């Protein structure tokens, strides 16, 4: 097979939730990440082809970038390879966010909580999703390896073809088709990487594994995946528009696409920020008494009331903790979306979820969750027994810090900021 012009990898996603951004922890374990990086680096460097990884570490902020770069250095030394490495930072300064907020140029994406300057200050980490521009700069500076922070998925793959002069509509749509790897094949579990070849008027998509197949349905289906609108995928500088795209099955495993467009738009950057909400402990318990199950709402009200009194006895107020009882067998999965009214489960699974403002509050109140609930006699027939069947001892399980998206916004930027907001640093890695 002819060598590709780039080997690239989308290393992250916001779909993992705000924990990794907020905590700075890597989304994948070192062992698995190192194995994959080693395969990619040795392959690309061996073929004399650039290697690009974007949204490093899962969340793409400074600690994730640093940890990934450490791995790349480690692997480079083991392989005895010298190369030029560019790193691209995605973390955004809070001062900039505050000033854009004041100017009305930082707008929520969907129904999210309003952002204030105070909340911006409280974000533990905040990144912008870079587009292709910073990657193009790194390539112009002759980088062999690019490790970048948070990016839009297709930007990681579109940079090389754009720099080579490919039609933007084709380059961006082709990038979108390959950025999820084997998901563009009929059997994603085979894990085949996916290759796009871009021509003047069309591009083709095929799996690199001989046994895998791309079909019109799977390639066209990529824009369905975790996307609100299958015909449009917004990027910092424009929109990938597939309304007129025509997909053709070339043979059993390859698809040709033409008619894709890239519509330029006023530049904007998607901003993701995480804030620490508190510390969580959980209690897992089963309930089997049908007389209690029948009156469960009443039980929960009484339980919450008792826990409030317990909290007060420690000098904690309602702002110091949040108690939520997730009732599996009733509405734990769908919550407010649940439409089933009839409840005739013979047993209920409870996850008593306590989030304390501090770790100490979570731990102190957590220790009272069991006794308070288990001894609460709603039916008058408890006889000193218990309501909660604990599978584990200890029954209270510390889960750790809890984060939520503090910022999930779109920031208007100047065209030059598409590059200038994302610092590109180039260094030479020399084999010993």
């Amino acid at each position, binding site marked *: 097979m002819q060598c590709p012009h780039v080997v690239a990898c989308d290393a992250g996603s916001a779909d993992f939730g705000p924990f990794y951004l907020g905590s700075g922890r890597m989304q994948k374990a070192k062992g698995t990440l190192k194995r994959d990086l080693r395969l990619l680096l040795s392959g690309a460097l061996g073929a004399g082809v650039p290697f690009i990884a974007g949204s490093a570490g899962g969340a793409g902020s400074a600690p994730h970038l640093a940890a990934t770069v450490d791995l790349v250095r480690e692997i480079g030394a083991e392989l005895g390879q010298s190369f030029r490495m560019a790193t691209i930072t995605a973390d955004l300064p809070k001062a900039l966010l505050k000033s854009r907020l004041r100017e009305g140029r930082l707008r929520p994406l*969907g129904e999210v*909580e309003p952002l204030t300057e105070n909340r911006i200050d409280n974000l533990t980490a905040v990144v912008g999703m870079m587009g292709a521009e910073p990657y193009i700069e790194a390539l112009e500076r002759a980088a062999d390896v690019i490790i970048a922070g948070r990016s839009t998925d297709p930007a990681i793959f579109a940079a090389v073809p754009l720099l080579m002069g490919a039609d933007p509509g084709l380059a961006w749509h082709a990038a979108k088709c390959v950025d999820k790897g084997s998901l563009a094949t009929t059997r994603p579990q085979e894990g085949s990487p996916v290759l796009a070849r871009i021509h003047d008027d069309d591009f083709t998509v095929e799996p690199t594994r001989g046994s895998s197949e791309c079909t019109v*349905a799977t390639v*066209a289906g990529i824009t*369905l995946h975790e996307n*609100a609108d*299958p015909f449009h995928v917004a990027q910092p500088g424009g929109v990938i528009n597939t309304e007129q795209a025509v997909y053709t099955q070339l043979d059993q495993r390859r698809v040709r696409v033409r008619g894709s467009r890239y519509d330029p738009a006023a530049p904007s950057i998607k901003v993701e920020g995480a804030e620490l909400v508190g510390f969580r402990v959980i209690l897992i318990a089963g309930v089997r008494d049908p007389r209690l199950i029948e009156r469960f709402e009443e039980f929960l009200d009484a339980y919450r009331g008792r826990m409030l009194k317990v909290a007060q006895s420690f000098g904690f107020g309602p702002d110091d903790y949040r108690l939520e009882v997730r009732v599996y067998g009733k509405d734990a999965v769908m*919550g407010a979306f649940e439409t089933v009214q009839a409840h005739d489960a013979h047993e209920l699974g409870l996850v008593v979820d306590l989030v304390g403002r501090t770790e100490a509050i979570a731990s102190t109140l957590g220790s009272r969750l069991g006794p308070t609930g288990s001894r609460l006699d709603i039916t008058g027939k408890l006889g000193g027994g218990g309501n909660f069947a604990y599978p584990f001892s200890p029954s209270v399980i510390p889960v750790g810090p809890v984060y*939520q*998206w503090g910022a999930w916004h779109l920031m208007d930027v100047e065209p030059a900021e598409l590059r200038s907001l994302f610092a590109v640093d180039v260094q030479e890695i020399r084999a010993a």
Partner: protein
Amino acid sequence: MRLCDIATFIKSANAGASILTFDIGLPTADAMERVRKSEVINAELIARLYPVRRQDVRIYYYLPSLVIKISIPRPGGNGGLDERDFDGVQQFAPLLTIDVPDLVQAS
């Protein structure tokens, strides 16, 4: 006939933190066209099945993959304190039993 009887698959997923999206696969372009013509799947129905406003419902007929896509706002964003389903994958149950009149039975 129920939607789950004619659909090849029905799934839900997050589309970013603030949107929930449903994909309904259909077996043939003909079946898809008949569902589309019947207008059984419409914003009013979705707003009845899920606590969202009619005007916030988006419905797409994606012919290249034979999929009907429905997107609605996801209250609270994903991964927050009240998170129940991290990836939004088990939220589609109300769609299963949508009544699809006989005229859309695949031949």
